[in-house]
């Protein structure tokens, strides 16, 4: 029978998701004995205990590891940030170059080493003096600054004239995430069971952001300390700190060690990070030449059509001013669409059923199958015929047909509906998002390709890009656990493109996703479009592709998702402008005026968009959750002209319709 490993964890809030689950549900070995006995301390104390053999495993600052290359590191778990971290900051009343002395928080050696690295890189040499943990900020005056780390930094924003987040600065300098701490163990102690248990604890902890934040809040209040809103802390745990170390974090880690070594800030030399159960590649192998990121230079490059890397996108999202982003996007739009024309379409959004099995927390439209008799509907052909006739009468050219995942509707139902539509109306069918296609494939036990082929044969022209929300499973698992994954969504689009269908793609923001989630979403769309365009080049123009990208803010009214993220028009414009720059291979960007109003729509046209969407004869989903705008074609043209463009009607393929037909 093994004795439990003595594990020492850091008391800071950001460590809670890594070790609180160990306390709540202590992991046991095969014999039912606990794997760990847990104690708590400040970061530098954790490292001291580990070095002294007073414990077996500890959450240690990365810098401490440099003195103990014999330690083994638990792979794929740690405390890192891809950009701003909030809790490692330098505050001062004067700009940094004028600072003469910095009071260092004694609790973290990683942050001190990071600061010295950044200062040395800039050629700055203020005097560095240690201060007891938590006291640095009180010593800021005149030209004296402080490095503040940990929970004390939550109270600082706005208190000092200058506030520098070292996580953000590291990203700016290297384009890489910063790893602050990880689990290290005395050699030979860790078994696979321990590593698995620490991974499991991390995964559970990440899912408990809200309860952990609530408990933290209560503890502070009980101790008579100032506390922020619990959502603030949850937000910090969920989107500021990153607990999974993947290859990008490891690159950051290696860069940090190597760079500080080059500056002679430590003499650990050619460090190999020894991960338990696997050996990481050597320092030299992982390093590449890197130039510091600059907002202006990146925007200039992007406006000229040069491709942005993922980390550059994250950097711009976090750092660029909105008007500057918008201006670059406007230049890019002008290069892609030099005619000075903004298009729009007359179509009708028809939601054929509201019965849905997906139960997404952000939706206020669906009716679960258990209540279908009371509140559910499926449009009959009579109802649809009426709607289709009205659409034609208004000059409409297309039906945007989407609905819930209704298990009563089989593939034949859709085939019949599409054939009937094509026989009786001259409308194009922009129908069924990937989510619905996957649902039908499951229902019929067919492949996605088979479903698409049959629907296409029945008359489906193109696919709308709904159901994407945020294409990152960390977000999807939280907000729509019963819906398709990112890969599944993309696979439907891939198959549709292979079959020769054009599709759109979308994003809904405001689910407390991180900058990284947002950019990964754009990145994956861009990669899929690369595939589609390569296919078209190699095998002909009859293959499909994305025609347009549309983003809008999550509409929260009445939904079960209780979070309140920033869904402001300001953020919308940022995301849209960034999308124009990042999605260099998707030709069109559509304004989402139904959620934002036509005035913001006009501004969006000056910040990257080149299409005003649809007149929206009908819309049922976002209007159920608080979006209430309606416009006629005449009004749409008025707003397009207001933004300085000529309006032109189009079809789904983004072909302009002849003027005479208008």
């Amino acid at each position, binding site marked *: 029978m093994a004795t439990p490993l003595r594990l020492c964890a850091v008391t800071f809030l950001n460590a809670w998701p890594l070790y609180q689950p160990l306390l709540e549900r202590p992991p046991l070995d095969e014999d039912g004995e606990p794997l760990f006995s847990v104690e708590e301390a400040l970061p530098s104390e954790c490292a001291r205990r580990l070095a002294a053999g007073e414990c077996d495993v500890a959450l240690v600052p990365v810098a401490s590891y440099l003195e103990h290359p014999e330690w083994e590191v638990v792979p794929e778990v740690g405390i890192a940030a891809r950009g701003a971290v909030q809790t490692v900051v330098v505050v001062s009343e004067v700009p940094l170059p004028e600072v003469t002395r910095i009071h260092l928080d004694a609790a973290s050696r990683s942050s001190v080493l990071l600061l010295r690295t950044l200062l040395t890189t800039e050629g700055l040499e203020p005097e560095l003096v240690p201060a007891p943990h938590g006291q640095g900020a009180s010593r800021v005056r005149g030209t004296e600054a402080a490095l503040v780390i940990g929970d004390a930094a939550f109270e600082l*924003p706005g208190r000092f004239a200058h506030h520098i987040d070292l996580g953000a600065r590291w990203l700016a300098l290297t384009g890489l995430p910063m790893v602050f701490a990880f689990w290290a163990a005395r050699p030979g102690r860790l078994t696979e069971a321990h590593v698995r248990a620490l991974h499991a604890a991390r995964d559970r902890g990440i899912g408990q952001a809200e309860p952990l934040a609530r408990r933290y809040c209560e503890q502070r209040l009980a101790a008579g300390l100032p506390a922020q809103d619990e959502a603030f802390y949850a937000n910090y745990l969920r989107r500021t700190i990153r607990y999974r170390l993947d290859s990008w974090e490891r690159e950051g880690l290696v860069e940090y060690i190597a760079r500080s070594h080059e500056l002679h800030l430590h003499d650990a030399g050619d460090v190999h990070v020894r991960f338990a159960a696997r050996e990481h590649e050597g320092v030299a192998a992982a390093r590449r030449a890197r130039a510091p990121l600059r907002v202006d230079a990146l925007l200039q490059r992007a406006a000229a059509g040069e491709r942005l890397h993922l980390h550059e996108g994250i950097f711009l999202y976090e750092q660029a001013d909105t008007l500057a982003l918008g201006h670059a996007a406007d230049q890019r739009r002008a290069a892609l669409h030099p005619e000075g024309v903004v298009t729009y379409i007359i179509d009708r959004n028809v939601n054929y059923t509201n019965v849905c099995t997906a139960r997404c927390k952000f939706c206020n439209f669906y009716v679960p199958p258990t209540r279908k008799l009371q509140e559910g509907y499926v449009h009959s052909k009579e109802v649809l015929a009426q709607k289709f006739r009205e659409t034609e009468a208004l000059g409409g050219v297309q039906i945007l047909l989407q609905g819930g995942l209704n298990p009563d509707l089989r593939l034949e139902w859709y085939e019949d509906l599409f054939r009937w539509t094509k026989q009786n109306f001259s409308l194009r069918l922009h129908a069924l998002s990937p989510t619905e296609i996957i649902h039908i494939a499951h229902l019929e036990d067919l492949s996605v390709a088979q479903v698409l082929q049959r629907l296409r044969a029945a008359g489906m022209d193109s696919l709308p890009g709904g159901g994407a929300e945020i294409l990152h499973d960390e977000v999807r698992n939280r907000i729509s656990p019963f819906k398709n994954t990112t890969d599944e969504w993309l696979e439907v689009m891939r198959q549709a493109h292979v079959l020769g269908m054009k599709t759109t793609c979308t994003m809904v923001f405001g689910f407390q996703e991180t900058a990284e989630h947002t950019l990964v979403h754009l990145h994956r769309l861009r990669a899929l479009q690369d595939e589609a365009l390569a296919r078209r080049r190699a095998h002909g123009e009859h293959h499909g592709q994305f025609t347009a990208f549309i983003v809008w803010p999550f509409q929260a009214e009445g939904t079960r998702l209780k979070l309140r993220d920033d869904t402001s028009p300001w953020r919308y414009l940022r995301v849209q402008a960034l999308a124009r720059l990042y999605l260099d291979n998707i030709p069109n960007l559509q304004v989402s005026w139904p959620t934002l109003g036509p005035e913001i729509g006009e501004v969006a046209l000056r910040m990257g968009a080149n299409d005003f969407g649809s007149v929206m004869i009908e819309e049922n989903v976002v209007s159920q959750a608080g979006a209430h705008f309606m416009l006629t074609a005449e009004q749409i043209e008025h707003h397009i002209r207001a933004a300085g463009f000529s309006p032109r009607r189009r079809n789904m393929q983004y072909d302009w319709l002849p003027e005479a037909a208008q």
Partner: protein
Amino acid sequence: MSPATDSARFRTVADKVRAGEPLAFDDGVFLYRYPDLLAVGALANEVRERLHGDRTYFNINFHINPTNVCEADCQFCSFARLQPGMPQAYTMSLDEIRGKLVERKDQPVTEIHIVSGLHGGVPWSWYTDTLRVLKELRPDIHLKAFTAVEIHFFAEKYGKSYAQALRELVDAGLGSLPGGGAEIFADRVRRKICRDKATAEQWLEVHRTAHRMGLRSNCTMLYGTVETLEERVDHMLRLRALQDETGGFQTFIPLAFHPDGNRLDKLPRPTGVDSLRTYAVGRLMLHNIPHIKAYWIMIGLDTAQIAQSFGVDDLDGTVQEEKIYHMAGADTPQVMTRTGLIRLIREAGRRAVERDTLYEVRWEDDGRPLPGIRVEASVPYSRHRKRVELSVL
């Protein structure tokens, strides 16, 4: 003009702005027509940030419109009911006026904004008593009351000089003048939309008189009726000239025309782009007026949020019970909570500052989470918006 000469011209204008030189009439018209909206916005934002940094001001106020009976016959107005006894015409008693404040006696209101119709059927004392009863109840409250058009009307109707009328109102509790009634100064426009009220010269003379007495005031411009862009710029220049003379204006407030329920209802509402451009041009032309205000009640909260990067540094107040614009079809909420305003400002990466009428700071946002704002604006960019000191590290 070709795009190349346009951008060369824009750079010249930008150089003037950066050198602190006043812009000429032609510059203003050019800025209105220059296609690159964001470039104009960014230039206005430079001035705004030079003057106010990241601050966006608001205050806690409410409105009283004591009567809608009005002798003037303005084409753009959906509020005035012309004569007593007409349907929906009302005139509040002094008790009703007092009641408006009593209802809010526990709220941290620092200002009452009072604007009325031109009602000649009441004695002069009704106007002075309106102020007096409010002051009796809350001596500390600031009364920003009666536009220049009303002051001019009082002078004519009750046989007083501007100075005399103002003096008596100050004695009754007047703190400052709101900026309404300016509309567009050009005669051509005034003849069409407001032929029978104070002329441009009279409007300016009232403010001149008030400024000389030490009163501060605001100024406005109604845009989106029948005026040309040239007439807008001319309007701004006349305000600027008076400001050079007296320095008494605090804030310029462009007012978007609302077409519902009045005789100009065939006109469209001003577009979002027109509003943003007007704020930006206003900021650039009126270098000598400290503040530019977006009155969210007219342009909507969304456009007001964006306007903070087009020269605007003030979002007015919590308002409450606005009648004039809502009778013209404004579909904005009538009340905005303090929390809502702070959130709107924060989301745009600005620092909210609660002010009183004379721009004394009462509270300044330090970026900490506040009750009712559950998650602040997405963390990285709002807090570090552009002030990231990139060159430093």
